[in-house]
């Protein structure tokens, strides 16, 4: 059973890496978005492997289903101008690549050096735990989703509410930035700019 | 109002503008001089007694014998329910007739069709170009002396009339 996990991990890791390289290399912005989709789906698979099924599902919905649709929207609206080339200058490419390879090497060197603590509880221990203790445990916790929910409204209540405020601010900000300056026919009150400051009527 | 009263009103209003007229027959009409035609059109449409607000058709007719290209305007009034027709002649070589698309918007397309099929140029028309035939068609088919083209952009046009 365990070598299935390994195979799936290597497959997903390969998919994620190929996606990342694809993003780095491809010229056409729509192809970059598609490689991003590959990485997102690979990441979601990895989350399932890491036992966080709920996070994996949310990643599929919010990230792959929501954010990516937004990005594709952005690509569609801004990719119309053919006579603008986005090819970066070679000096920038060389500098960027060298910098990142150095970063990757440093990170990996550091990672191998340190010995990470391991206080993962085994399945029997989790079963014996009381409800409150079980909420803290991540792996081998059968109802991890419930615990996540309880923790959101327990210890993480403040960041949870602050998050909702941030989302509200983003909602209003994005709507304001993207408001139609040219009056839209039949738009309900409040969407069109007030009669005085309409944009140039085509 | 029947045809003679309309013609009387027109001659009384425009005098020289009305070249000739025919009250009887199956198609009572008045022939109007080209330069007087726009004011006559406005008069026909706005005069309370006439109120010809519905332009039914603009037909171009080619009379090579009298060297004339005639535009026939058939009018009807949705208020008084009486009908009348107006003819405006133009020479065949360089046919120019003032356009009334400003008075009756329906004339816009009808005049374009007359221009397309007969070659009558309507001055003051907002967008005078061919409407039925392709843009680059040579000649005007409804003229009596129309020469059938041999081919169109390489497509042969052989037919009984034009072997």
């Amino acid at each position, binding site marked *: 059973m365990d070598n299935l996990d390994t195979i799936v991990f290597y497959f997903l890791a390969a998919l994620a890496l190929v996606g990342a390289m694809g*993003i780095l290399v491809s010229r056409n912005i729509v192809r970059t978005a598609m490689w991003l989709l590959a990485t997102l789906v690979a990441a979601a698979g990895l989350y399932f492997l890491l036992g966080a099924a709920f996070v994996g599902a949310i990643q599929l919905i919010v*990230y792959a289903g929501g954010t990516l649709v937004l990005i594709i929207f952005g690509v569609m609206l*801004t990719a119309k101008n053919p006579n603008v080339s986005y090819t970066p200058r070679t000096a920038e490419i060389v500098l960027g690549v060298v910098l*990142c390879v150095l970063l990757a090497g440093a990170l990996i060197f550091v990672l191998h050096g340190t010995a990470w603590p*391991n206080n993962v509880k085994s399945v029997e221990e989790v079963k014996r735990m009381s409800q409150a203790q079980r909420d803290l*445990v991540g792996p081998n916790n059968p109802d991890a989703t419930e615990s996540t929910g309880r923790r959101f409204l327990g210890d993480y209540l403040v960041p949870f509410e602050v998050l909702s405020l941030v989302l509200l601010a983003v909602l209003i900000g994005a709507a304001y930035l993207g408001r139609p300056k040219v009056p839209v026919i039949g738009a309900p009150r409040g969407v069109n700019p007030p009669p005085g400051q309409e944009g140039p009527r085509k | 109002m029947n045809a003679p009263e309309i013609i009387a009103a027109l001659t009384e209003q425009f005098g020289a503008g009305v070249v000739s007229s025919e009250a009887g027959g199956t198609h009572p009409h008045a022939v109007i001089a080209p330069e007087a035609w726009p004011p006559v059109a406005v008069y026909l449409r706005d005069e309370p007694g006439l109120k010809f607000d519905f332009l039914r058709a603009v037909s171009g007719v080619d009379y090579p014998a009298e060297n004339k290209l005639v535009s026939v305007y058939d009018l009807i009034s949705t208020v008084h329910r009486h009908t009348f027709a107006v003819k405006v002649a133009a020479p065949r070589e360089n046919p120019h007739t003032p356009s009334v698309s400003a008075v009756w918007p329906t004339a816009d397309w009808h005049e374009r069709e007359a221009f397309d099929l007969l070659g009558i140029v309507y001055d003051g028309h907002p967008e005078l170009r061919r409407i039925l035939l392709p843009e680059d068609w040579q000649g005007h088919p409804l003229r009596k002396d129309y020469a059938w083209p041999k081919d169109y952009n390489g497509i042969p046009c052989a037919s009984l009339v034009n072997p």
Partner: protein
Amino acid sequence: MTPVGLQHYLVLAAVLFSAGLCTMVVKRNAIGILIGAELLLNAANINLLAFSKYSAGTLDGAILALFVIVLAAAEVAIALAIFLNFYSRFASVDVDRGDQMRG
């Protein structure tokens, strides 16, 4: 095949992170940079969850990962609104044209 341990995930995350950073540095298209940023966030998420499974054994990693996902969506929304305004001003989302902006 050795069983999958913490190291494998960390290495993967590190490579993803540097690839994301490299994209942000190299790309001239604003949306390319945005995609690079998404890559960074994903790498961070993988790290979070890997630590929560192999090392810490607690649920905090998953919760933080959820926060990161939600905030990434918000960030993309604002970034795209800005890019669209940028586009309507410069007819392209080429970041190098940004130097003509006032202030």
